[in-house]
């Protein structure tokens, strides 16, 4: 249709909608064609997306060096495991409960240290993550089952429907991821999201524009921890057993890499980062010990060629649109 030219910003949003629809369709159709193994791989990919998104709030949005995020992931998983096995509370009810538990834990732990800057905060988060893991191993009050962890976690039941198949857990995780992505996009465009980014850019200036820096940093940690707690719940339900080996300092490093490789503060970027981190070791399973060397090389190359991340956050995204407008009215 010669001459018809849709105004650019309308075209962009329509394109985005089409893209989203395509992704949604692929997600719905995927489990019917892929075997259980691939569906499970997609499940753990979903877990790493959630973990990436949860750390992205703290590291990507507010720029706080958090290398102990696995601690919140563990709190969520163990809250679900202990409450379900001891008191029989259905696991889906425990989804919000583990988010609350992780969020509350984050509030209590980070309140006294939220004023720390950069690397000092980093080592304290590492310390906090290790304290959680070691406490789980040492089995205080006989609660956490020590190194064997807690076993016998029920499968999720939705009314009469038992979601214990691979496809069931797949559906559960990707519904939660969908909600999280939707919520994070909205948060980014809200007063809270802007305040977080201001704090990341310059704390002193943020204070001078009326932002309660301490409160917003704490909010970021609480929300990040809550989302990690949700991931912990879904992980515990899938494996039906939780043990300290799954919540090591290395897990926190993986989350850190997901946010950096994907792009700080960029939701699509974090999703791609999670894909790289979780799918890569699976694709190269057969290489056994070499795959970790290749994995390390990939991390370096990513940072070399895409230091801003694979899909960096479009800031001033409307710049291009603005440029177009300024180049003169689109003809037709």
């Amino acid at each position: 249709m010669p001459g018809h030219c849709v105004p650019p910003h309308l075209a962009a949003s329509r394109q985005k909608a089409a893209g989203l629809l395509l992704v949604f369709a692929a997600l719905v159709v995927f489990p019917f064609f892929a075997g259980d193994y691939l569906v499970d791989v997609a499940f753990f990919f979903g877990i790493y997306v959630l973990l990436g998104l949860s750390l992205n709030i703290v590291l990507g949005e507010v720029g706080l060096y958090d290398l102990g995020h696995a601690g919140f992931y563990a709190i969520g998983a163990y809250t679900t495991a202990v409450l379900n096995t001891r008191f029989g509370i259905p696991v889906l009810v425990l989804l919000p409960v583990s988010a609350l538990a992780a969020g509350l834990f984050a509030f209590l732990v980070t309140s006294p240290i939220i004023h720390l800057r950069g690397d000092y905060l980093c080592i304290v988060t590492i310390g906090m993550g290790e304290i959680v893991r070691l406490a789980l191993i040492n089995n205080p009050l006989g609660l956490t089952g020590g190194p064997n962890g807690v076993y016998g976690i029920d499968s999720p039941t939705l009314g009469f429907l038992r979601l214990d198949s691979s496809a069931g857990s797949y559906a559960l995780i990707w519904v939660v991821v969908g909600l999280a992505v939707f919520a994070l996009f909205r948060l980014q465009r809200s007063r809270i999201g802007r305040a977080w980014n201001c704090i990341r850019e310059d704390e002193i200036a943020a204070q001078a524009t009326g932002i309660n820096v301490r409160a917003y940093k704490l909010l970021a940690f609480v929300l990040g921890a809550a989302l990690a707690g949700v991931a912990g719940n879904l992980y515990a339900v899938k494996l039906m057993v939780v043990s300290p080996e799954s919540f090591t300092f290395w897990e926190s490093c993986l989350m850190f890499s997901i946010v950096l490789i994907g792009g700080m503060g960029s939701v699509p970027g974090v999703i791609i980062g999670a894909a790289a981190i979780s799918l890569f070791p699976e694709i190269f399973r057969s290489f056994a010990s070499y795959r970790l060397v290749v994995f390390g090389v990939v991390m370096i190359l990513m940072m070399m060629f895409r230091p801003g991340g694979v899909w960096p956050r479009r800031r001033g995204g409307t710049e291009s649109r603005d440029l177009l407008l300024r180049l003169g009215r689109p003809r037709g």
Partner: protein
Amino acid sequence: MKRTVALAGALLLVCALAAFAADTKPPVLIGLQAPITGPWAYEGQMARQATQIAADLINQKGGILGGRQVQIVLEDDAGQPQTSALAATKIGGQKNIVAAVSTYGSSVTEPASNIYEKRRMVNIAYGATAVRLTERGSKYFFRTCSRDDSQAEFFAKAVPLKFGAKRIAIMHDNTAFGKGLAENTRDALKGMVDSGKLQIVYYDAITPGEKDFHVPLTKMRETKPDLWYYTGYYAEAALLVTQAREIGITCPFVGGNAAINAEFVKIAGLPVAKGCFMTNEPLPADLPTPEAREFLKAYKDKFGDIPSSPWPVYAADAVNIIAYAVDKTGSPTDGTALAEYLRSKVNGVPGITGKIGFTDKGDREGVPLFLYVVDDQGNIVISR
């Protein structure tokens, strides 16, 4: 013209291939999960080698189900619960795999066994001794290695008596295996402690991966134990004994079944390793059975030396018992029938690690336990 010739050639090829496939029978696939990477990479790689030897020996004797070859399908679980779940889904998902040998490490075995249970596939653990694994009422889970509590009971009955020990120090490494054995030992000694026959004067855990244990050892020395039981792995055990002798701890050292092997002797050095004891199932070298001699000879010929710990041999026995059961039941695809057969019909079947039989919970029956000692030449022999 040229096209038709090419077409004919292609057709011929396809027929040949089909014919070739028809007459040789498809192999019987047995899944193997092992920590090929990660901190237990050494145990995993030995398990792969041992199961390969077991399969070769079966195939040399004509295979099973009338000549079908046994083939091992390996999946690396990296000693991680999550990777183990993925490996189990991958093995469980392949219909033509009859059963799985899975895996090393109690908390790595558990998520995998949950998945095999759902897929109704027999899974036999070779390096998971946590008592609770067979308390979960699972129908498809078995293990060829023994449980922590059997070793703990053996220690409680035999060892303090042998050394006339009254003050016992127990040290573990906070791993699933080490802490399990330590706790079971403490429970097993409870009777004697209550009756005042002996005391547990020290009970604590070191951190695996570390090297310097002077501080906990000095603390232990001050409790003046006359018998010291360490239930962790050989790497730390070697460091512990060396450093203990350095700071003047002279009481006898007894290790759990993962504490003493050739590596232990190499790291600790003969002067220190000499006279260290261990509670353990029969070591490969001491296995009296003819199957053991045949297996060890084949293993040594192919890989240069025999496995340095019991776990890979249990993996080999798992392959043997699966092959035996599949051959007897004649149904390579029916997991439930295989599980039922293993549970009820299998007892006293000759295997590398002695007679193989399973209790109704899936535990290994009748594995004798011995007190081993490192002799003057550094060999690990049964202590009389």
